Structure formats: C-alpha cells, structure tokens
C-alpha cells in the first residue's frame, strides 16, 4: 500500500467510523452520506463482526424494523430492503409531515434470517436524521429510545432535559457544537447544544428492547453519564477512549444539566469574560447586576468594590464564590452573623404562597395581570419567587402580593420579617467586604497580582476566587441565568476537532 493509499484509508475510516465522526456543515448531507455508507458497509463490504452475515447474503432475507410512523416490520430481499431504507432516509431528508411528527429518529433494526426464518444475526442501524440547518446550530443526534433514556435519568435524579446524543462535539469548523437531529422538534435541545460548551454526555444506555445494546453501535450496557469534554483524542478503532473520561467532571455535568433552561424567555443578556489561569465566566449585563471586584488603584490598600459588567475591563480583578453563588454567601453570613435565620421560615412561606398562587392562576402571565388589578405598581413575580429576591421594594406592591395570595392578614408580620432579612443582608455585605479587605491587607493577594488567580478564605464561610480579567468579549449573548458568575475552566469546555 502506498503512502497516499494509507492517507486515503485514514479518510475513509474517519468517514465511516461513526463514533469519531465530526460532522461539519452541511451536517445533514454528511449524515445522509454516512448513513448510506454505513448501510452499504453492512450490506456489501462485510465486516469482521458481520462475517457470518456476509457469507449468507445470497440466501438470506432481511427484516427491517423502523420506528417511523407507521412502525413497520418487513421481511425483504436485499435490494428491496435497501430501497425501502433509502426511501425513509429520503423522506426524513425532505421532512414530510409524518416524519416531522415522529419524535424519534429512524432507527432500523436489521435482522438476518435464513430461509426458514431463523434469526442468524441482528444489527441496529441508527440512521441519522437529516434536517435543514440554520446558520448556527447544526443538529442534534440523539440516541434511540430517547424517552427511555431521559426517564431513566430523571429517575436517577438528573434533569430530563439532558441532551442525549451519541455524537456531540465542539466543532472548530463551525464554531458550534455539532450534532445531528431535528431542530424543529427539539428547539430547546438545539438551543442548549449551541449554547452550552459542556453538556452531559450520555451513551446509549439501552438497546432497542431496553436491554443493554451490543454490537457495532452498542455499549457495554448500563447507564453511562459522561460529561463531554475536549481532551482525549480517540484513535481509530478505539471505541472506548472517547468515553474514558475524568469522572470527577460528572458532578459538573450534572450541575450543568440541572441548569438547562426550559425556554428562551429565561435567558438573560450576558458577556463572556476571559479570566487568568484559563478560566472564563459569563457576567450579566442586566440592570441591577453587580460583581464584586478588587480595586487596586491604591495598591497598598486594596478595597472591595462593586462594579457593573459594563464597567469590567481588562486587568480588573473580579471575585467569585467557589461554593455556590455569592448571594448565598451573603445569606449565610446574614443568618449566622446578623440574626436573619429566624425569619427564613417566614420568607419561605411567603415565596411558597406566591408560587402556589401563580400556579393557581395558570402562570406568571395571568398572575401578573391579577397583581396589577390588586393595585401593584410593579409585578415582578418571576423575580420575587427566586432566592435572589428578598422582598418588593415598595410596600404597596407587597400589599398587593399579599392580597393576591390571600395572606393579607399576615402582611405586617411578613413585611417586618422581610425587612429584617433585607437589613441583615446589607450588613452581611459590609461584613464580607471587611473580611476580604483584611485578608488582602494581610498580604494574601500577592499571588493574585503575580499569577492572576488566587483563592481567598472567608473566615468560616468557604472561599472566593479572585481572577484578573484578560479580555471581555465584545458581543452580548443570551445565556442561562444560572451560569452567570460561575467561572469555568476553559480547557474543559473547548473544542473537539
């Protein structure tokens, strides 16, 4: 074999090795080609795993079981089988109403039968769906039995809106996460795929009959949740290296999956800030959002300041809490140092009452209208039910909420408790600032100035990480509010070519 032939073989292998395939634009076409090549490989070229099939082709018939509407199971001659399968592929490609309505991909199970109908072999072909592609997202390929997979994940405490995919890669070609599927049917999934640089990677946990799958597409069975990450380039023929990942990232992946937003409406405008030591963070550019920063304008006396995202620039120093949001730190300090703990039950009761009232009204839209009808000047119910909010600023709005949720008799008691919490939070903010400034004055920040990243102890309340800002991305993008102010390691979220 000549050197050029070796190179050609490498391309061919990359083209047919489903596991490692990177789909570049136009994804659907590539997928279509891959599906057909896969089929041809199975039917004609033979394969080590399919050697018995290869030798029996002439005397055998094939049964094609598809899950497109209507589900079908037919025993066919080879030519007719190939024709039918390609017809399904074509219909998927064209997006006929029936196929658009199908919530699953065309999964074809091929059973090899001898003349007496005895099953000799069986393979599952996950023929990739093909679909029009927008500029940004390519598509999502999800495993068959998607619902079973997501149900299983939910039963195991993982949010069900996990992207289930056998192939999900960050593409240098498109600058997007590349996957294959129906954008129209899974807009959220595609949205998530395009936005999240880290996703939960789930290998097929089930075969077609909810049994551990095996074979060309199979796994070793059981559930595998793997965070998709960008290191560990697989080699041809190595089916496991892609999944041989750092399990410590599992927690992070679950964390991410739990934060997947349900709708675009929840997204907030944010900017990506590149930090020292290969970290990055999304900061909110929304009104009223502040970040803690270290003001080194007087180096001998660094001070803690609050800055808006629009004020963050290169060489600024930002502070982020390592264990949860900074607002939670304030809450903890307020509870332990400034006595707001005794009012928390009251606060929770108030928020729970609002949630129930909103559900009763049929959603935030109707609830907001009702609140205005009750005399509220502002009706920011979405915010008030979150942990970031303590109380409405105006008593008038608060009273309207109490009337709306039918707890007007307790309004005074509630208002007093919430005001106490509000004051405690403000005092806690001052306390944290003093602690941090004292820490910096004690010379702890030297490493920060040197390397751009240092972890600061907050007496008894965990740690905060301080980073030097390297770059602020000029574009504003819509991001999930829960990723705001959560620094992440860039190398875990990059590209996989």
């Amino acid at each position, binding site marked *: 074999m*000549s*050197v*050029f*032939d*070796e*190179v*050609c073989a*490498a*391309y061919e*292998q*990359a*083209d047919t090795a489903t596991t490692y*395939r*990177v*789909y*570049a*634009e*136009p994804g659907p*076409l*590539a997928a279509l*080609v*891959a599906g057909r090549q896969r089929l041809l490989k199975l039917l004609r070229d033979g394969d080590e795993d399919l050697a018995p099939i290869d030798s029996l082709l002439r005397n055998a018939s094939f049964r094609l079981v598809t899950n497109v509407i209507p589900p079908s199971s037919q025993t066919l001659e080879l030519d007719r089988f190939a024709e039918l399968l390609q017809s399904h592929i074509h219909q998927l490609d064209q997006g006929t109403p029936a196929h658009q309505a199908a919530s699953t991909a065309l999964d074809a199970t091929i059973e090899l039968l001898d003349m007496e109908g005895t099953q000799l072999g069986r393979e599952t072909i996950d023929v990739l769906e093909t679909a029009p592609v927008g500029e940004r997202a390519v598509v999502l390929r999800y495993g068959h039995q998607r619902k079973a997979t997501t149900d299983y994940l939910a039963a195991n405490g993982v949010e069900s809106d996990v992207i289930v995919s056998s192939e999900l890669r960050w*593409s*240098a*070609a*498109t*600058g997007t996460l590349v996957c294959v599927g129906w954008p129209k049917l899974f807009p959220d999934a595609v949205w998530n795929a395009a936005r999240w640089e880290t996703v939960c990677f789930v290998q097929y946990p089930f075969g077609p009959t909810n049994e551990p799958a095996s074979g060309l597409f199979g796994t070793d069975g059981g559930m595998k949740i793997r965070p998709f990450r*960008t*290191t560990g*380039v697989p*080699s*041809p023929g190595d089916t496991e290296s892609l999944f041989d990942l750092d399990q410590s990232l599992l927690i992070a992946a679950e964390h991410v999956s739990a934060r997947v937003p349900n709708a675009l409406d929840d997204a907030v405008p944010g900017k*990506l800030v*590149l930090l020292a030591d290969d970290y990055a963070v999304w900061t909110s550019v929304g009104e009223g959002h502040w970040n803690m920063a270290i003001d080194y304008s007087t180096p001998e006396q660094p001070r803690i300041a609050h800055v808006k995202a629009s004020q963050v620039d290169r060489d600024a120093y930002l502070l982020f809490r390592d264990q949860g949001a900074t607002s939670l730190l304030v809450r903890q300090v307020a509870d332990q140092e400034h006595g707001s703990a005794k009012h928390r039950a009251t606060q929770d009761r108030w928020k729970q009452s609002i949630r129930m009232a909103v559900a009763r009204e049929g959603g935030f839209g109707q609830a907001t209208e009702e609140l205005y009808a009750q005399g509220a000047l502002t009706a920011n119910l979405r915010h008030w039910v979150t942990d970031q909010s303590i109380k409405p600023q105006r008593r008038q709005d608060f009273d309207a909420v109490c009337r709306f949720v039918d707890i007007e008799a307790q309004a005074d008691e509630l208002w007093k408790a919430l005001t106490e919490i509000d004051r405690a939070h403000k005092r806690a903010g001052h306390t944290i600032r003093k602690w941090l400034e004292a820490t910096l004055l004690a010379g702890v920040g030297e490493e920060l100035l040197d390397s751009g990243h240092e972890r600061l102890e907050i007496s008894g309340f965990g740690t905060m990480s301080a980073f030097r800002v390297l*770059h602020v*991305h000029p574009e504003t993008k819509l991001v999930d509010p829960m990723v705001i102010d959560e620094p992440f390691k*860039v*190398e875990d979220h*990059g*590209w996989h*070519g």
Partner: protein
Amino acid sequence: MKQKSAKGPTPSGDLGETSVGLLYVRVGKQVRPLPDWAQWLVELGAAHCRTDFASKEKHWAVVTIPDRRFAASLIAHGAICARLHQADWPSVRDRFAGFAEGTPITWIDANNEARYGELLEMDDDFISYRPRVHGGWGLKAKRMHKFASSFWPANEDPEFVDGRPLADHPDFVIAATGMSAELVLGTSDIDAILIGNRTQLEADLTDVCFSVADEIGCLADTVRAREMVGLGQHHRSAIISAVAQPEDVEGSNCHGPAIFDGASAYLRMRDAVESSAAIVVLDRWNPGAENAANTVQIERGETWISAERVEVRPQPACVELYQWTELR
C-alpha cells in the same frame, strides 16, 4: 519534445479547469481520479491564493483532517496553480518587443503541441521565425500571425539548462498547471510557504504518485520549493521548518498563503506570518492539535473582526473547515 495541453500566459482569470480537475493518483499501474478530499484541499489552496500586502485584514482557514500527510502539499499546489493563472503576465507583444533576432522562441501550435524556433523579425501583426527541425534549424523562414497561437520566448528546449533538467517531470508540470513550462520553470516567486516538518513535507512533495493524462510526477514539480530545487534554479514556494526562527518566515516575502502543516507549526509560527492568507492543517489524531485548536478558539476571540469567508465549496464529510478574518 512533445508537450501537451500547455497554455501560454494568461493575463488574468480564475483557476479554471487547470490542475484542479486534472490530477490523478497512481495506484500501481492503475490511475484513478484524485479523491474528493484531496481535490478539495487543492481548491482550498486556490481559493486562498491571493495575498494583499496593503490589506489590514488576514484571512484564516483552519482545516482538521484525519491524516495530514499530503494536505499542505496539495494546498500549496492549488495555490501556486491559481496564482500562475491569475498573475498579470506581460502580453506577447510586450514580451517580444525587446528580443533580438535569433532569440529562441517556443509556442503552442494548432495541434496544441509545443514547437521551437528562432526569432527572425516581427512587425505589428506577424512574426517571422525559423523553425527547429530534427535538431537543427530549418532553412526556410516562416511567417505566422503572432497572436494566432501562443508564443513564448524560450530556451531552445525550455525544460533544460545546460543539459540539466529544470524539473524531473516537465511534461507533468505543463499538464498539471496548464501553463507553459517556461512560466513555471523559468520564473521565480514565492506563491506559498509551507511551514512544518521539513522531512515530512519533502516526503509528501517528492512522492511520485500523481499523474495528469499520461504524464507522471510529484507535487514538488509544481510546488517547486526553493529549498528543494537547488540554488540558482527558479522556484515558486519555500519550506520553512517549524523549528526555525520566526524571522525566517517574515523574510520570505510570500505573495500567496502561508500553510501551517500541523499544530506545532501553527503554535510556533502563527505570529510570524505576514501573509494576508493563512491556512492551518491540523491532524485530528494528533494530541497536539487540541492545543492548536484551543489557541484558535481563544485568539480568534481577541482578533476576530468578521466571519467573512473565502468562497470554497463545501468540504468533504471528514474534513472540518473553520474560517475567519482578523486584523493584521
């Protein structure tokens, strides 16, 4: 010597049908068309062949492929062929104006074959010449409409200088580039620079596994790297080692794309390239490609000014292409 399908100078224009559609691969005694991925790489090079020194922008293209052998060479081949066709060559009239009687000339006749002769005289429309016949000069002077076919001043036998061949496979050069051998072999320019492992690049370039029509050859015949053709010979490209000093890249005065063969070449030399077009070839199985790709991602965020892309047809399925434009 019989020459086939050679064109005279083309004032300007696209790559057209040259080289891109002509290269074949030899497998034993058989010949097969260039695979789609290889042809696409040639086209990628052709698409990125222009460098505008005055431009403040730089076009980047990153391709990731399963195996990067031959990739940089094919890209360079495409870029050089395209630049040869787009060059603003002087007209036949201008070229002949300064030649004295007796200057050897070559041209492509009506049968598309190369002929040789000796210039006698010319006026505005016609050229008089004495043909070369059986190794000697013909006795009768001939007269031909000088724009009826493609004339070119040449050595008596343009592929040789002092009996030494200018190229190992001159007919392959003509067939693959679609240009007169005199243009390819008799002029020097840096139409592309290849940055990478020199040993590997030279191995790719010298593999005689290509053909056009009946002529066999290697990419070194058309790429003609300065370091490979030898001192005093004409060249069209340069090879720069990935471990060379960055100053070597700056001094190359490249008119075409800089082609980074591999992650190391890109990571080490990316800032040294002055060319306004750069193509990076990354081998997906190489762990180093990961660092290069991350660098692409990060630095692109800092220098990116637009998603402007150089037009090239959609890449084959197993190839990724990532393009952007940044400030130089």
